[in-house]
């Protein structure tokens, strides 16, 4: 603070004022809030406000480009009486559950496979992550073509390997359409699990494995008693993370099946889109989207709390 005391006592007043302002700006809390003001304002305006506005919309009968009328829980009551809504709920649970299990098991297998030492490891790891990098819509279009009713290359392979006499209509049959979206979601999401779990595996000290091996533990025992317990936090975070975004998935289904055939692959997000954007019923659409809130809200709060307690 030598600089301050050595200044002439009769210095010009504006300078003293500027000093005071500078010192005020440099206070920890003032600096922090000033820095955060703009991003927080931005997020408040474009996440916080729309979120609250969405809740308000769900309580209104609101045709597009017209004024809304307040209907209370009317939209939600209509949802509960709508058989398609319950079909959508079932579809979403089946889709999320099946895809999550497949991604978790496949991803763990992938991580264990790449965790071995081999040549060109970095290159292989980079190539394996491609399905996750490429824009989903574009890779889904490729899958759509691979499952085309007339020219499906998947069916061509099934027939020529003698597995089937003629290929099924993948996207035309309700059960197969659901299987297809689960398969493609798994194809895209599995590398994310694999690479993240691999990073988790690499934090496990090699000494632990060596010590256990000296004590006579086989590789299976070591997997159950060392690898899996130490990997549990990473598996948990990745899984909850992926469940949230699979539950609310839109693009894959919108592009591949549009929710068809006969709503067999309709999910909450695509159904909300159909009602709000194609049908012009913003209020009802918002209520369908918000039907995901109880489950996703709990998962989001749970995951946030868990991640913060593990810092």
């Amino acid at each position, binding site marked *: 603070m030598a600089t301050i005391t050595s200044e002439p006592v009769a210095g010009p007043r504006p300078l003293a004022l500027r000093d005071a302002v500078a010192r005020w700006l440099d206070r920890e809390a003032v600096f922090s809030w000033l820095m955060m003001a703009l991003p927080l304002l931005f997020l408040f305006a474009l996440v916080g406000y729309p979120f609250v506005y969405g809740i308000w919309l769900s309580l209104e009968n609101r045709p597009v480009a017209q004024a809304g009328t307040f209907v209370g829980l009317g939209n939600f009551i209509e949802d509960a009486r709508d058989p398609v809504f319950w079909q959508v709920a079932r579809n979403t649970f089946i889709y999320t559950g099946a895809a999550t299990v497949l991604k978790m098991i496949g991803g763990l297998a992938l991580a264990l496979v790449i965790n071995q030492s081999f040549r060109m490891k970095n290159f292989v790891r980079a190539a394996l992550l491609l399905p996750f990098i*490429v824009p989903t819509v574009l890779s889904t279009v490729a899958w759509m073509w691979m499952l085309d009713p007339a020219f499906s290359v998947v069916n061509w392979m099934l027939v020529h390997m003698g597995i089937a006499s003629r290929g099924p209509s993948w996207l035309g049959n309700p059960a197969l359409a659901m299987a297809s979206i689960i398969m493609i979601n798994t194809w895209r999401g599995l590398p994310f699990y694999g690479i993240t779990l691999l990073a988790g595996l690499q934090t496990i000290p090699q000494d632990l494995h060596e010590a256990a091996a000296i004590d006579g533990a086989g590789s299976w025992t070591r997997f159950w008693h060392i690898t899996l317990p130490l990997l549990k936090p990473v598996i948990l975070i990745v899984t909850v*993370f992926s469940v949230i975004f699979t539950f609310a998935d839109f693009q894959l289904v919108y592009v591949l099946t549009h929710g068809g055939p006969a709503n067999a692959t309709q999910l909450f997000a695509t159904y909300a889109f159909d009602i709000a954007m194609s049908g012009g019923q913003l209020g009802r659409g918002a209520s369908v989207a918000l039907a995901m809130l109880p489950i*996703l809200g709990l998962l989001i709060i749970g995951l946030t709390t868990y991640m913060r307690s593990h810092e």
Partner: protein
Amino acid sequence: MIERRGWRWRALRLWLPLGFFLVTGLAPFYWMAVTSLKPNAELYNTHIMPLVVYHPTLKHYVDLLTETSFLTWTWNTTVVAVASTAISLVLGIMLAYPLARTRFAGAGLIAATVAATYLVPQPFLFIPLADIINSLGLSNTLTSLILTYPTMLIPFCAWLLIGYFKTVPRELEEAARIDGANRFQTMTRVVLPLCIPGFISAGIFAFTLSQNEFLYALIFLTKTDVRTVPVGAIAELIRGDVFYWGQLMAAALLGSLPVALIYSFFVEHYVAGLTAGSVKA
């Protein structure tokens, strides 16, 4: 490897599963490439072996570039991705820095809110946002995307950068403060230059996320000349029941190329960004 067993063991545990993952993972890309190079006569002939191209042609690429607005869509996608990535990085830094390096009342609450915001999926927001964008008169402008993409990207960048900022030793900051630097100068001259790898990670990740975005672009953009690649391909290369498969696959391949190229240059940074949330936490 602790065990040293024979090649059979290694084939069973490494090469066989690795081969399976590589083939299933990359087959769709092979199929995109093969399809985009086939003339229509070959594409729609079910009597020949489909896995190879007999008479490769660039016709689908030429048609895509000359008869559709693909180049405009690519330009739009790039403008949106660059602008929203830049905004998100700057605002993400402003948000993350105090959360990582200063102490103030409410910091914990803000950090939790930022993490939760990152986890809010788009379907919660698209209907109200469509209405808001519409009433602001921003429909069919790239601005609508440049404003809304950062809502997903800022929380992600901030979350990632908090981790990076925390790794810079406090002593460096204290030394700068003793030399008379104020907090802002300490940040810009001491801490930020040390965190450039973090900015690259966050930037690459934000860039690929913007290129991947579909829902907002689908809702806000209904005119050809403002569309992005994913929406343009879906809305204009599929006309009713007619699919232009050759052009669609050419578009899928070309549309994936910028992301794949940038990704291949910065794989390590990308992987660091991908795993930061779950492993460091």
